[in-house]
């Protein structure tokens, strides 16, 4: 994390602190922000915030700088190193996790903004010592080489199957209203947010095809 601000605007900072105090104690007089109880009070820039994250069914209480991404919270503060940091800019997909069942790039999500949501990482897929069917398909088809992108690929594939099941179209779907059929062209398009620099795409597509057939 970067050093504290070189020259934080003192006026702004004071205003935050005033707001923080007024909001948390419920004093109405000078408060410009009539936040309801559910709203989160303002924190001073540069401070840390209490947050509760629900990951793989477990709730964790954390105290983190609001700049911490969901990915860094998972890896550096919760010991869940399965999700990988590839580019840090939402371009490679190695950090893909599910939030409320939807695949997202966790490197572009602030941890604090995920409160109240259910995060599922690669560590949360297997149940009762048994691999998730998509994990098993990647093993069966050797859908990786170095393995760095694999957690993101697997999570993304799990989400892809769910999206297709509920009828979501893709850019290559000919008929927007037809039930999507996950052929190789659909799989390639729908998995295009996950890069593999080893180039194991042939086997990744095979694994996804197999998982789709069994889904």
């Amino acid at each position, binding site marked *: *994390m*970067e050093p*504290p*601000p070189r020259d*934080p*605007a003192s006026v*702004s*900072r004071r205003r*935050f602190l005033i707001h923080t105090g007024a909001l948390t104690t419920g004093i109405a007089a000078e408060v*410009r*922000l*009539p*936040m*309801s109880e*559910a*709203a*989160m009070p*303002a*924190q*001073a*820039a*540069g*401070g840390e*915030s209490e947050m509760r994250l629900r990951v793989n069914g477990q709730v964790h209480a954390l105290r983190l*700088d*609001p*700049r911490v*991404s969901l990915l860094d919270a998972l890896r550096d503060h919760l010991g869940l190193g399965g999700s990988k940091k590839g580019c*840090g*800019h*939402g371009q490679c*997909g190695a950090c*893909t996790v599910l939030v409320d069942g*939807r*695949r*997202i*790039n966790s490197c*572009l*999500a*602030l941890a*604090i*903004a995920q409160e109240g949501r259910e995060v599922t990482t690669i560590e949360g897929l297997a149940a009762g010592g048994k691999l998730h069917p998509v994990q098993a398909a990647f093993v069966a088809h050797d859908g990786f080489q170095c393995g760095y992108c694999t957690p993101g690929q697997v999570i*993304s594939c799990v*989400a*892809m199957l769910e*999206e297709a099941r509920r*009828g*979501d*179209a*893709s*850019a290559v*779907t000919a008929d*927007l*209203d037809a039930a999507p059929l996950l052929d190789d062209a659909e799989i*390639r*398009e*729908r998995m*295009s*947010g*996950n890069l593999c620099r080893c180039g194991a795409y042939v086997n990744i597509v095979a694994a996804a095809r197999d998982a789709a057939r069994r889904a």
Partner: protein
Amino acid sequence: MQPFAYLRADRIEDAIAASGPDARFLAGGTNLVDLMKSEVERPLRIVDISRLPLDRITETREGGVRIGALVPNADCANHPLVRERHPLLSRALLSGASPQLRNMATTGGNLLQRTRCYYFMDAAFDACNKRRPGSGCAAREGRNRIHAILGASEQCIATHPSDMAVALAALEAVVEVHGPRGARRMPMEDFHRLPGATPQRDTTLEPAELVVAVEIPPGSFARASTYLKVRDRASYAFALVSVAAALDLRDGRVHEARIALGGVAHKPWRAREAEALLRGATPGEAAFDAAARASVAGARPYRDNAFKVTLAQRTVARALRVAAGIA
């Protein structure tokens, strides 16, 4: 990343009241958080608006479609009302970004995303009038393959990167914003602006104004429309040139035409001259080629992007043929 105070709003009024010159609204975060990481954006306060009740798509009394500002791009593309009435918008959305990003990115955020000009995106470059007003434009004399051919200025030749906004421009959508002085609505065409001498402003939004919804009026373009995106790779890339084309065909003639281009200007580029040429014309190669030429009237390319002038014409002509079903 510069430290910031984080505040979560659960009412629109709270979000607006919490805004300010050093604040940014956070929705999906796909563009903002990325720009904060590279310190192109340095807000002192983040107002998280992702919990505001703006995530619905509904039908308006007039038969239009109202899309809440926080509807994720993926949900918008796959919503039955959008698919059936405005497949052009579904297609534009599905052509953009990746599934992960479409799950995060919102309608309002998509409109407000910043240019992907290399010199804007990288704070190591000194000259960028959009990032540092008055510092110059490195792109004019630098690498400008992805830059504007229409409506640019001495100060900025950046393009707007959105696919969604191009479709919305063609569909004559209306943007509803709320601010300290109340609500107002403006046509898509007036939402984004040309760079002129103040390229630091992408839109006509006033300080603390928040996009709350986009409304698409009822229209007769559903059957004969297409979004054609040309890019460097088959998926997950920004448009070099994109075209939203929509035709209202009646009795073998073009009753009304809509053409908007992406990747060519600082805003979605409505080709009104081309549309006027098509009105009343018999759909076919001759009319479409004439419209294609008119679409790039006044184009001014730079060192690396002259190809876009030809590419844009070809893309317009082909999009019109596809829309008319004679491709």
